[in-house]
């Protein structure tokens, strides 16, 4: 009895220390997250004027939203383009970075060189440079060089697709991937790093045991690697979603930035919130499906 009381005391002290450790973060969340989010929602329902002592807001209800959905000529168009891009880039980036991480994790000659090379996008990918070079080198490259280098100049990707006689949708999809391959590879740098770290954390005893049991490579991947990576995969999915959400190559984001620079804040807030909500629904579906169908299988 006495003993239990004492341990509870320790637990209490420990929980107090927990609060101490996260206290700065709590203040940060209130000051730099919760309050701004609420303000931003209010802005989206108001008409804003900027005066000397801050901003003046007048509540106008749903007018901003009605404007961007009903009257704005391009917004819905941008939105659907962004969402399509989002839905199709996400699985490709996640798969691509997983494959890259698996490749780089193996033992072979020149592994260190390739690792150093493959981390280059990590340094450059998140910024101005990527916009510049993907705009210039990227378009240049995908239009001609990739096609030529892939096919050796003999026949183009289109010809291969025509020969294979694929349905029109799939053919279009394949072509889109090939023309976007530059962006996709350059956007999967950090994800590869995260996967590599995850792969390293799988204890090698598991593989040894499976070898003794006579598992094939595929079984090894499907029953050990993949389940052990499930948390990292979730992190990668979330990271990729956020990254795609704010990337400059996104039409909505691009226009939002230009509006922000022009100091039009009310309409911009409404645009962003509507965009966030619609992407949020997609995000929720993807994360939910992942948790339900893949992660729960092993836990």
């Amino acid at each position, binding site marked *: 009895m006495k003993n239990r009381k004492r341990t509870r005391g320790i637990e209490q002290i420990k929980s107090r*220390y927990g609060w101490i450790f*996260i206290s700065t973060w709590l203040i940060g969340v209130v000051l*730099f997250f919760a309050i701004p*989010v609420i303000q931003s929602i209010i802005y989206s329902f108001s008409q804003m004027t900027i005066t000397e002592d801050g901003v003046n807001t007048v509540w106008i209800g749903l007018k901003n939203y009605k404007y961007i959905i009903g009257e704005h000529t391009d917004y819905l168009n941008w939105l659907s383009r962004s969402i399509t891009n989002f839905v199709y880039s996400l699985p490709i980036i996640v798969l691509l970075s997983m494959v890259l991480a698996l490749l780089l994790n193996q033992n072979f000659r020149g592994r260190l060189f390739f690792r150093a090379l493959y981390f280059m996008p990590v340094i450059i990918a998140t910024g101005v440079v990527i916009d510049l070079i993907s705009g*210039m080198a990227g378009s240049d490259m995908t239009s001609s060089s990739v096609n030529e280098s892939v096919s050796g100049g003999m026949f183009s990707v289109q010809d291969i697709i025509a020969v294979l006689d694929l349905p029109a949708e799939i053919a279009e999809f394949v072509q889109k991937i090939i023309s976007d391959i530059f962006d996709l590879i350059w956007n999967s740098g950090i994800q590869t790093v995260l996967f590599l770290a995850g792969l390293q954390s799988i204890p090698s005893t598991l593989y040894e045991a499976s070898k003794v049991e006579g598992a094939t490579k595929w079984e090894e991947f499907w029953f050990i690697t993949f389940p052990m990576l499930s948390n990292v995969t979730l992190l990668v999915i979330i990271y990729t979603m956020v990254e795609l959400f704010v990337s400059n190559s996104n039409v909505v984001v691009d226009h939002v930035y230009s509006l922000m620079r022009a100091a039009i804040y009310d309409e911009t807030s409404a645009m962003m919130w509507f965009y966030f909500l619609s992407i949020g629904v997609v995000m929720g579906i993807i994360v939910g499906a992942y948790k339900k169908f893949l992660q729960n299988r092993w836990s």
Partner: protein
Amino acid sequence: MRNIKSVSGSLLTKNTLNNVKKSAPDTLMFVFRMVLLISIGFVIIYPLIYMIVTSLVSRNGFFNSTRVWIPEAISPMFNYKTAWELMDYGNSVWATVKYELVSALIEVCACAVTAYGFARFNFKCKGLLVGVLFLTILVPDMMVLIPRMANYSNMDILGIFGLVNKLTGIDLRPNLLGTAAAFYLPSLFSMGLRSGIMIFIYIQFFSSFPKELEEAAWIDGAGPIKTFLRIAIPSSGVVITTVLVFSLIWHWNDNLLCSMYLNAEYPLAMQLDLLPTTLTTMGYYLNPETPETLAFQMAGCVLFVTPMLIIYMILQRKFIESIDRVGITG
């Protein structure tokens, strides 16, 4: 029976005989891997080579559009000198260090503290707070930037200063826009650039520490804060390196925050973004779309990337090693 077979099979793998049998698919695998690695490596290397080559081309070199890789005329000195001057290189590197890199360092420290709290302690509403942490990752900075900016222009802590202002007429609310505090404050409260993800990486690492470690320290009379400083931090060099590299890179590349918070003294990322405009305003070209401006822009890119590459070269081995080792404890 099957077990015996597989055990004997695994013993056989040590035999040379078995190795010979395995070598055919192995070579195939090797070729396949190399082809994949090299072709993806090509996609990564291509724009970098393009960037460097284009940065060397002189004005006359652009007339012949069939020569891309080996330009007809080069003027590296002139291109780089112009880019250097237009970007005000020395000052903007200093601005980057002052605003961005310092706040990156603050962020790395602050996030470690928060993550330790989440990973090692149980307290009420922890689940809820972890949910909030996820929300801060999911809601991009872009969404909260406008209100943050409006708040910065007269910074107020929970309305206290505002109240003082109303009662006494003394305005204590400082204008943080354009000062370094606008960058440091969020980092200090672990709400800086992508702090959520950093906290998350830290949490994953810290929760892999064995519980006995803490209990031993606890029995020896070290409080949690001492345990954190003396035991947790020294043994997490690997994760700190990873987060540090990420944070430095993200801050170096950031041009959204500074384009919102600063009016002068732009960091390098912004100067690079503005380079075409600067070129026109300085009277180099009337139209920023002419191909010659490309050379200056690419020279600017090279200048922009170089410091980060040097830092990466220095940290590279540790970084790659750290990725190898983050796992060992986990």
